[in-house]
């Protein structure tokens, strides 16, 4: 497709379960980002992939969070042993140099942990 695609759009899970969120970036975009937005909060940076470089994981809130990206394509964000405070909209974005700063966002995955 032409834009960043995220799936699922909505995910309801029970506390303690693992979840996996998927992001398909725009074809050819070398940079991929995960952000999250909790209710009433701004966009919180989680992790950033740029080409074959080591990812910037400085935003991951705990070791329950991890993300992978295969080459310059799909990325998955995994949250293990989910907690209620993990409930948020998880947004994926991609970009391509030059203008690496202009991000194209997906519509997000609304995660609700009961």
């Amino acid at each position, binding site marked *: 497709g032409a834009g960043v695609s995220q799936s699922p759009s909505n995910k309801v899970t029970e506390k303690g379960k693992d979840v996996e969120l998927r992001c398909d970036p725009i074809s050819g975009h070398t940079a991929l980002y995960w952000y999250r937005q909790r209710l009433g909060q701004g966009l919180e940076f989680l992790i950033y992939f740029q080409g074959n470089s080591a990812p910037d994981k400085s*935003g991951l809130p705990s070791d329950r969070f991890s993300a992978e990206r295969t080459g310059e394509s799909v990325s998955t964000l995994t949250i293990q042993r989910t907690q209620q405070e993990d409930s948020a909209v998880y947004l994926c974005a991609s970009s391509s140099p030059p203008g690496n700063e202009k991000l194209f966002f997906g519509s997000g995955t609304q995660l609700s942990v009961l």
Partner: protein
Amino acid sequence: DQQVKQNSPSLSVQEGRISILNCDYTNSMFDYFLWYKKYPAEGPTFLISISSIKDKNEDGRFTVFLNKSAKHLSLHIVPSQPGDSAVYFCAASSINQAGTALIFGKGTTLSVSS
């Protein structure tokens, strides 16, 4: 510690008037600034940007002003339209620090009434 601050969580403006959204930053390494607009249930979309070598950038009804000495930028929308009602995020990055992600503020919700 927030590096990008949007101190006004909301702003209400009448149609046809000017909307001014403000943003402050603390990191003097930031040299590229962007505004994103977000509608409910959608991902943020890029609106306008400015490099630190400029103090103003204009695109139609949208103008961004940058005051480097004050570490302050603002987005002016004139004339404001009801369709401009959305959450506006300020974001910053450092071009010279390759491999760093955009840092976003918490957003300002703009409501334009007709």
